[in-house]
């Protein structure tokens, strides 16, 4: 690769080139400011699609630890998807205890108050004993929910300071044409990480680590003689903190016997669905030796797209030193058993590869906490890491 040495610093001179302070990753006070100034106002990707709850009454519950809210998302009889605090308006008891399911309504197990699938209060036990109770005012407390290309997002602001569409920024053009509707969730995983959310996410924001961290799982899929350090062929950093990075694929990648089988039976994360047409909504046509795109929705969720498949993930901050990393793979819905077997290959490799990505987080976090180092030295290839710190610091200061 003969690209100039510092391509990205030239594209984004405002980000500078000096070392970056680790203070925002180690300070508990800074984390509290992130909570107040960023997390309470952001759109949270729930890493689910509308098609994951296709029928009236289908629901799931997601704890959003950082704001301390249990969220119930349910499809109503009118086919609308709504989000509520998972709490009874009587005295606040939790209404739904299962993670997911299909229900005719929600009944509180404290005193039997019952809500319909639109969240309206339908029944109050021994209602005559109350004074002037107006059931129409006592539906489950609503949470803002919006949908972008099928993906469900919630916002805990009383009045969100920006719409989801505004928060998506350039993704409304760049990513929107991707054929998400053809895909089905085939795998979902959750990891506990004892590290700051930014330290955790940083391990997923560059290709520099690939030759080292993924030497076993991907010895030649993303790195080769002409790109030994997985240089990122295309990066776009948006002013609102969103980021896109194209991850290269090495043309000389040799398929193992099993990868060959998997591709014969269906699609794989390295070979895609085998079509020769360019997938809209990706950089397949613009980036040399394209593998897939990482698309980061500020601050910490992603919709990453490959040739006919995608994975969504998020680095959920729990505390200054605790993060949950959740990810879900969406592949073409398998029709035949051989396709299900085929997809197992990509699922397992990507799952195990993410375990490698997470390996460095906790020891790195410990070293930062011990102030063993207090600055990060970042190369041009790590400009997305720099951009994250810059955006977070500016938001907290602003």
């Amino acid at each position, binding site marked *: 690769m003969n690209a100039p040495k510092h391509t990205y610093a030239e594209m984004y001179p405002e980000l500078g080139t000096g070392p970056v302070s680790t203070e925002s990753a180690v300070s508990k006070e800074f984390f509290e400011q992130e909570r107040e100034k960023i997390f309470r106002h952001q759109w949270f990707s729930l890493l689910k699609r509308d098609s994951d709850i296709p029928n009236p009454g289908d629901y799931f519950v997601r704890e959003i630890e950082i704001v301390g809210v249990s969220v119930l998302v349910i499809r109503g009889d009118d086919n609308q998807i709504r989000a509520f605090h998972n709490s009874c308006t009587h005295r606040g008891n939790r209404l739904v205890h299962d993670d*997911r399911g299909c229900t005719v309504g929600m009944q509180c197990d404290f005193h039997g108050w019952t809500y319909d699938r639109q969240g309206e209060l339908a029944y109050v036990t021994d209602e005559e004993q109350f004074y002037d109770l107006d059931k129409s005012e006592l539906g489950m407390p609503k949470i803002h929910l919006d949908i972008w290309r099928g993906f469900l997002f919630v916002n805990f602001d009383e009045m969100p300071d920006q719409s989801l569409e505004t928060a998506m920024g350039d993704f409304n053009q760049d990513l929107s044409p991707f054929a998400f509707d053809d895909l*089905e*969730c*085939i*795998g*979902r*995983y*959750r*990891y*506990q*990480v004892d590290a700051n959310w930014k330290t955790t996410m940083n391990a997923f924001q560059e290709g520099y680590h690939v030759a080292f*961290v993924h030497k*076993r*799982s991907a*010895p030649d899929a993303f790195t080769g003689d002409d790109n030994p350090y997985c240089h990122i062929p295309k990066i776009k950093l948006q002013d609102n903190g969103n980021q896109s990075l194209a991850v290269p694929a090495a043309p000389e990648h040799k398929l*193992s*016997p*099993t990868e060959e*089988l*998997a591709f014969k*039976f269906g699609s794989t994360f390295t070979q895609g669905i085998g079509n020769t047409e360019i997938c809209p909504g990706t950089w397949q046509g613009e980036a040399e030796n394209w593998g897939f795109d990482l698309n980061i929705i500020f601050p910490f969720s992603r919709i990453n797209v490959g040739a006919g498949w995608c994975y969504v993930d998020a680095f959920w901050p729990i505390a200054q030193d605790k993060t949950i990393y959740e990810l879900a793979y969406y592949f073409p*819905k*398998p*029709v*035949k*058993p*051989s396709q*299900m*077997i085929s997809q*197992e*290959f990509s*699922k*397992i*490799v990507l*799952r*195990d590869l993410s*375990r*490698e990505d*997470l*390996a460095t*987080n*906790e020891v790195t976090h410990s070293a930062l906490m011990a102030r063993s180092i207090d600055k990060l030295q970042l190369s041009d290839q790590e400009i997305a890491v720099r951009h994250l710190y810059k955006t977070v610091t500016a938001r907290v200061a602003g």
Partner: protein
Amino acid sequence: MANRLPEEFSDLEGYVDWAEPTEAARMARRIGASMEELTDYYSTLLPRMEAIAAYLDQWDLPELPDDAKPLLYLGMMYMEAAVAVELFKDPDVPESSPAEKLTVLTEHGERALLG
């Protein structure tokens, strides 16, 4: 004990314990196995995978009969073993976040695909 696999796969009957129905159980079995066991499983199944796929593909997934499911699970378990044998040379993923910190939440989706 009655055979659990279709007759044409009776050569694999000795591996039927590996037919774990969920990803979480297959991953646990892989990590709990020795490299010798995984290599044996991999080497035995690899030349049979095309026949397994052809047999199972008589049906679409939602119509797959229950008595064919152990064979499907053996095929899916093959992928776990193959990744250990071909990539990691170890039952687990070396230099990684420990498996105990991972919760596999795939089971509902797997069941839904099978109707």
